């Protein structure tokens, strides 16, 4: 099984090389993306069967990488689950790209890196030693960087790519330190050895913090998130879908693998850091999503939010595990992992929607769109599924993970530490706030793009996208609904992964009547997505039917109520900025919102102007000073470029004398 997986990876890499040499014709993209679709489906199948069979983990060693170590590969429940996630996401993105790729002006800047990117992510998941893990991790960053630079002519794309790779390099360095701590100076790099070596809690906590920095910087945890809202949107949409939907999950896989599988026991006081980081990331991320005016950036910010939610869940798992409550840890871990899967589904879907809109209108800024539900009905319907799911509304999948998250939050009284007893419900409140804000953000997203009247000519002239793209989106939407209606299956499925990560798993949900979810039998809190779906459908359909039956069914079209000002301009609709106004006002300090109003003095006929802006405080308080510092350092050092030979000689002479004096005094 592992062999098959590696074969597919190999094929993906070969495909990359082939794409580099293949002629730059119209056939090539179809070939490359088609092949990627097939190969990713293969990966998904492997993950699926590994989970379904829940077979014993199988390992494999290839004679590459560190000479005396070799490259260790292994597939167990955890990696199988993320492999499945990667397979689904990759297959969908590639399928979408078969259609979407036609619109790429320079396919040769995307094709050679795309399959390799998929392959690298697979290797990260399959690798079983520190070197292979970090190597593939870095290759993943590199190839995605190259993909981000597809439209390299745009200045801000180059800046985005630069920021992205620098942050990635920083993250990898931190991970190096983390693995250095775990492997010790002896250099036992394979995961088995790392698992065996016992380490005290302080050390473990230190590694946890490093992982939080390293993996967090790739997943988009604050304050290492700054690259994400610029880099993800800069890439072609199918790549954005992969980066947001899948790559962040690979980062989370790394965190889970190290912290929950390799690291061993953790002190309880390590968990608040993770929980707080996650919760803050979630709420701040979604606030920026509400305030951003660029469709794809909204999605990127919401990715940050969801990563925050997942990390909060992981923090809960740490807390429960530190209190020796594997059952509850399993609940939190299940919530986190299922949310990872769900987020992959609907975030990929939404990025594809954004791409479709981008292709149809050529515009990304929300205030240029509107009314597309008339021009692109199918895309709109699929997008509706996506936004409903991401807003955590029943009966779709987003709500399931949300619900599980809250269920595990409600178990906090069982924690021994008063500090956590206070913290966890507060974090739960923050998550609740996040969920509600997410609904706001995506009402705005969907409403401004698809509803109302077109705000620009391209939006008015848009037309539906090709079948491939629609097929990919439809598939993901179907999975969203399925995962929402039959959550029990998903939970049983993620069981092996959860067991590895938290030492226990939830009871099997397959036997419950009506596909109901009863995570903890001892306290029978239950939820049945299937029944809710059924009831809503029956009641709604029934209501519609009766009304049409016993009462009127007549419809007349007429102008909208214009309040006495006929044929108002589309610009008078509520736009992205105005819709966000109430939230912006309520949460002003968090997003450093500034609104400036210019009122012409009496007699001046010019128009009044209003401008609103938000600032990322991480930039203001962390990165800008840092950049200034480096700049000052560089300038200071640079003056050494301009000395005279005599001065350089005096440098040598001085150093020599210094050393000699040191020697004389040392003896």
């Amino acid at each position, binding site marked *: 099984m592992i062999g098959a997986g590696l074969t597919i990876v190999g094929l993906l890499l070969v495909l990359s090389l082939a794409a580099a040499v293949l002629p730059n014709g119209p056939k090539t993209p179809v070939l490359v993306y088609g092949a990627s679709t097939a190969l990713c489906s293969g990966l998904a199948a492997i993950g699926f069967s590994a989970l379904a069979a829940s077979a014993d983990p199988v390992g494999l060693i290839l*004679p*590459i*990488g*560190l*000479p*005396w170590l070799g490259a260790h590969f292994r597939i167990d429940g955890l990696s199988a689950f993320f492999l499945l996630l990667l397979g689904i996401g990759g297959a969908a993105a590639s399928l979408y790209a078969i259609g979407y790729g036609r619109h790429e002006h320079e396919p040769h800047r995307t094709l050679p890196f795309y399959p390799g990117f998929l392959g690298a992510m697979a290797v990260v998941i399959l690798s079983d030693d*520190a*070197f292979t893990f*970090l*190597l593939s991790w*870095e*290759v993943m960053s*590199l190839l995605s960087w190259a993909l981000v*630079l597809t439209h*390299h*002519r745009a*200045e801000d794309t*180059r800046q985005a*790519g*630069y920021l992205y*790779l*620098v942050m990635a*390099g*920083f993250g990898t*360095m*931190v991970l*190096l*330190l983390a*693995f*250095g*701590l775990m*492997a*010790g*100076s002896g*250099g036992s*790099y394979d995961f088995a050895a790392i698992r065996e070596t016992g380490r005290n809690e302080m050390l473990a906590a230190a590694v946890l913090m490093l992982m939080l920095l390293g993996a967090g910087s790739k997943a988009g945890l604050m304050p290492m998130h700054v690259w994400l809202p610029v880099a993800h949107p800069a890439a072609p949409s199918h790549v954005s879908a992969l980066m947001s939907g899948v790559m962040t999950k690979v980062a989370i896989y790394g965190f889970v693998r190290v912290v929950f599988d390799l690291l061993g026991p953790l002190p309880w006081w390590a968990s608040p850091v993770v929980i707080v980081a996650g919760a803050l990331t979630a709420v701040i991320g979604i606030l920026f999503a509400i305030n951003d005016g660029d469709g794809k950036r909204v999605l990127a910010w919401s990715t940050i939010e969801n990563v925050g939610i997942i990390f909060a869940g992981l923090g809960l798992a740490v807390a429960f595990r530190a209190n020796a409550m594997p059952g509850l840890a399993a609940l939190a871990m299940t919530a986190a992992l299922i949310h990872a899967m769900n987020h992959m589904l609907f975030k990929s879907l939404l990025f594809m929607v954004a791409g479709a809109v981008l292709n149809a209108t050529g515009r990304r800024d929300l205030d240029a769109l509107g009314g597309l539900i008339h021009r692109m009905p199918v895309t709109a319907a699929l997008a509706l599924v996506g936004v409903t799911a991401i807003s955590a509304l029943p009966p779709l999948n987003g709500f399931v993970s949300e619900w599980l998250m809250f269920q595990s939050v409600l178990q906090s009284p069982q924690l021994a530490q008063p500090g956590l007893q206070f913290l966890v419900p507060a974090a739960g409140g923050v998550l609740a706030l996040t969920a509600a804000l997410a609904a706001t953000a995506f009402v705005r997203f969907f409403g401004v793009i698809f509803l109302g009247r077109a705000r620009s000519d391209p939006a008015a002239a848009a037309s539906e996208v090709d079948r491939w793209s629609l097929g990919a989106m439809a598939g993901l939407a179907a999975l969203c609904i399925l995962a929402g209606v039959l959550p029990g299956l998903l939970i049983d499925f993620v069981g092996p992964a959860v067991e590895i990560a938290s030492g226990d798993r939830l009871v099997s949900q397959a036997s419950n009547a009506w596909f109901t979810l009863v995570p903890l039998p001892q306290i029978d809190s239950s939820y049945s997505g299937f029944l809710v779906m059924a009831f809503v459908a029956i009641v709604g359909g029934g209501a519609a039917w009766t009304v049409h039956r016993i009462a009127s069914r007549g419809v007349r079209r007429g102008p909208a109520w214009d309040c006495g000002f006929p044929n108002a301009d589309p610009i008078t609709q509520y736009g992205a900025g105005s819709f966000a106004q109430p939230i912006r006002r309520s949460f002003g300090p968090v997003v450093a919102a500034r609104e400036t109003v210019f009122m012409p003095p009496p007699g001046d006929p010019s128009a009044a102007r209003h401008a609103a802006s938000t600032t990322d405080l991480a930039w203001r308080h962390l990165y800008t000073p840092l950049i200034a510092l*480096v*700049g000052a*350092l*560089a*300038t*200071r*050092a*640079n003056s*050494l*470029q301009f*000395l005279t*030979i005599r001065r*350089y*000689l005096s*440098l*040598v002479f001085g*150093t*020599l004398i210094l*050393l*000699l004096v040191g*020697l004389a005094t*040392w*003896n």
Partner: protein
Amino acid sequence: MSFDPPSLVLIVPAVAAAMLALMPSYRASAWINVAASLLTFLAAASLFVVERPEAGDYLHVDDLNIVFIVLNTFVGLTAAVFSASYIGHELQTGRVTPANLRFYHAMYQVMMFGMNLALVSNNIGLMWVAVELATLSTVLMVGLYRTHEALEAAWKYFILGSVGIALALFGTILIYMAAQPILGEGLPSMVSSKLIASAAELDPKMLNVAFVFLIVGYGTKVGLAPFHAWLPDAHAEGPTPISAVLSGLLLNVALYVVLRFKMLMAANETALAPGPLMVALGLLSLVFAAAMLYRRRDIKRLFAYSSIEHMGIIVFAFGMGGALANFAGLLHMVMHSLTKSAIFFAVGSIAQIKGTQRLADIRGLTQSHPLLGWGLVIAVLSIAGMPPSGVFMSEFLVVTTSFSRAPILALVLVFGLVLAFAALLLHLTGVAFGEPSGEDEPLHSTLVPLWLHLALIMLIGLHMPGPMVEWFRSVAALLG
């Protein structure tokens, strides 16, 4: 005389130098240069198959220097190939005349001779003479273009180099005097193998003073801060093949010499441990060079400073010591000379295409010259420690092993690495992407050496050949 590779790697360049000095036609001389380098490389490579000769009082071959000799002759070969295709265009543009081209090729072989001699010599005195010879020949090469800047660079290089040489000599004398009571007068006390063998009895205090002079003296050649001043200008103003040779080979040779003496010091436990000094100098060079990378405007100076940075990393690794760190140091050394010379090949072609070395005037290479541009991107990312290049492997080993031993030092190291990475990437983004700039000329020089090196780097990074691993491990053990 039987087939004797060690002396062959010396004889071939010497003879070739003599021939080239007499050869009038520059075209033929370019190819003779290549042929001679090829022969030298073959002779060096044959060291793997023929059994090694007995270590004499002058020459010897052991695990340590065999790696260097082969690497040295190999890069010497590729650089010769590149220069053969490069120098023609220089002649067309009139930057060089056939006269000083003849001189150039002769000097090239003299330089190779000097470096090979330094590597195979088993005698610290001979080693010193060889290093000086290599230095002088490169000084003349740097001044080749006779431009104001070139002469200034050569002059700076020359003065600093000579002072370094002088200090190194004093260190050598001290070593001899420390050894003389034990090994007796004359030659034996200068044979490094014997020195190391009987290092334990040598007077530690004498060794300490000697090592200070040696590391300052040869450290100047290695380009460690604060002795680095000659390096950037010498790289920037000389012909690009020479920049490649400087970064790829000469620094290594100097480093090799430092390593020899480090082995000597390590073998005498009462003497001052060389580690801390090397670690300090390494970190200083790394962080300083990293900071210097930001404000660069000249592409060759940029990569010259990056050489300083990497010398810092290597010296740090050897200073940390231990099997893994030494392994990493050796690997990094090999990787750096391959990668950096590849980068300079690319830079040479770029400078010829764009007619400038100013970073600001070079834009969008991946657009205008994909093969060259992506080659540069891969090379620069490799030198910045991105996989799958072997540099990643060495940095992985250095950072992971040092963090658990000396966290603070490792943090400084990581800081320097990230700093340097950000700087290199900043310039790379400008050079490789965006709208192409300048006149869009075709290539004048071959890309074969560039891609050959890149292929090797990737290969070693993914799968190191077994024998190489064996050598490295035994050498790492030797270095202690």
